[in-house]
């Protein structure tokens, strides 16, 4: 397993007509393998940009990102990505979607089939292998996306608001699934969310980011993800410690919002 290291990353978007946008400024952090990091922050603070750099879809304008000993220069299957929605291949069945990675690597067919079955079971979709993805609900589609990502056994799983388009109930179930998978597989997970509660509940580490320029405003080490493995989710989210942290972070974000508004107005 490999540690992730982000060193002085800058990202400036070149806007043809208008001012350049400093989406990230001097972002540095280390993430040991096996942690679950959640990224939280107001819209436009560079969360997606950071994730795209980690995935290798964008090259930062400054600084370096390394996973283990390798500098990240492009996409690779050691870093899997789960998108918010619409990234499944609608022309393939659920099973074919999950087996996409192994097929691209020309893996053994029988092994791929067995692995696909296993993953379908893991994400609670046994029996849906032959369904087309557009026949599934949004929550089920995101489970397929997770399974597809896991099929390649990546070191790091990157998720950009993976649960953002789901209804509250489905979302809670999916949060539990993410936690269970993280616990079982021991993979490094980085998850972007707009929900303070989700960031607190899932993250064993949390970055609150601030915009203009995009940066890490504050870091937290959190106990709740560990606790959630044994405790009931609702109970945990209603506990005084959880509520206290939630209010603390909410007021921090409100402060930032007010600062932005003040600067704009």
């Amino acid at each position, binding site marked *: 397993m490999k540690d992730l290291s982000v060193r002085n990353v800058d990202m400036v978007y070149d806007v043809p007509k208008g001012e350049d946008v400093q989406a990230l400024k001097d972002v540095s952090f280390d993430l040991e393998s096996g942690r679950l990091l959640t990224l939280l922050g107001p819209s436009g603070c560079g969360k997606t940009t950071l994730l795209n750099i980690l995935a290798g879809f964008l090259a930062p304008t400054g600084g370096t990102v390394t996973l283990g000993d390798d500098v990240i220069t492009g996409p690779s299957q050691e870093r899997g990505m789960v998108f918010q929605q619409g990234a499944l291949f609608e022309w393939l069945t659920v099973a074919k979607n999950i087996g996409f990675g192994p097929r*691209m690597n020309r893996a053994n067919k029988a092994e791929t089939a067995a692995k696909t079955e296993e993953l379908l079971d893991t994400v609670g979709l046994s029996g849906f292998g032959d369904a087309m993805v557009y*026949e599934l609900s949004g929550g089920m589609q995101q489970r397929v996306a997770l399974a597809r990502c896991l099929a390649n056994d990546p070191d790091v799983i990157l998720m950009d608001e993976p649960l953002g388009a789901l209804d509250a109930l489905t979302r809670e179930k999916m949060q539990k699934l993410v936690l269970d998978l993280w616990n079982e597989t021991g993979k490094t997970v980085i998850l972007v969310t707009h929900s303070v509660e989700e960031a607190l509940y899932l993250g064993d580490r949390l970055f609150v980011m601030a915009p203009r320029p995009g940066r890490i405003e504050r870091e937290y080490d959190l106990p709740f993800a560990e606790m959630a493995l044994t405790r009931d989710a609702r109970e945990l989210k209603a506990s005084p410690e959880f509520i206290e942290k939630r209010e603390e972070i909410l007021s921090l974000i409100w402060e930032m919002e007010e600062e932005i508004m003040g600067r704009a107005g």
Partner: protein
Amino acid sequence: MSTDPSGVGVQDSAKLAITDKTGSHSASGFLNRGPRSDRKTVTFGDSSAVRSDWRWSLVSLVLLFFVWWATTRAWGFPSEFQIAEEANYRQIANCNCDDEFTQIVGPRSFPAPRDTWDALKELTTDGFQNISLWEHTWASLSRVLKGMFWGVTVGVPVGFAMGLSSKARGFFDTPVELFRPIPPLALIPLFILAFGIGDAPAVRLLIFASIWIMIIAARSGVQTANLSKVRAAYSLGASKTQVLKNVLLPNALPELFTGIRVALGVSWGTLVAAELVGARDGLGQMIFAARPFFRLDVIVAGIIVIAVLGVLMDILLRVLESVLIPWRGKG
């Protein structure tokens, strides 16, 4: 396709039944009662509540046929006598000029359904001018197929290249933008002079008619690829070739199919015009050759065959499309 759940018809209830297993949808009981539009109270102005009612299509078909029958019954098709008289005039005048004849004899009456039916029978058995209807039809169809074949085989790779590389886009933009606006019909005189009479000019004209449509369809098929899908594929270990084959191509299939349908329609229309002047067989040639003989029945029969074939090809493509691209519009 709309994602509006109220647009879901009965035929979709089977698919919804799958999601029912999770209990997250309980709509199927409601759907079983029939199309949802039946339950809508506001339909005037709600376009999703309007679809083609086949019973009314049948009514208009019957009506059209009735109008045809009634009007031609009243005025009648030239009698044996009229035809003999015309032949007479033709001999006297020793002239092949139709305009003059039309002036002398008066405009021909429109053939009744009965006459057209007889002409159709005659065409299938004896043919017209020793060429049977099947030969004419095959001549036309094979030209369209050849034209489409080359239009697709050349157009799709060019369109893909234009969607994938700035250099290819820049290079091909010029010819595409330059030639695309030229109506293929405007090229008929040029092609006849350059390539002679027969198959060659017609097929080349059809390639010209279809290729730009296919290039544009392929280009936009590539461009509509969702960036997340492409990125997901790379993250899953796909190479460029694999992304092309496993993501971009299937993603472009719906657009390619639309392109093929449009190109086929344009080709069919262009073909008949091309045959009018440039061929020794084919349906267009047949109806043109029938004119000096005042065979309006053959002309109308030919037109009907052309129309029916056009509709059949479109239906065939639609069926093929629903079989090959069941995911269309569901991305």
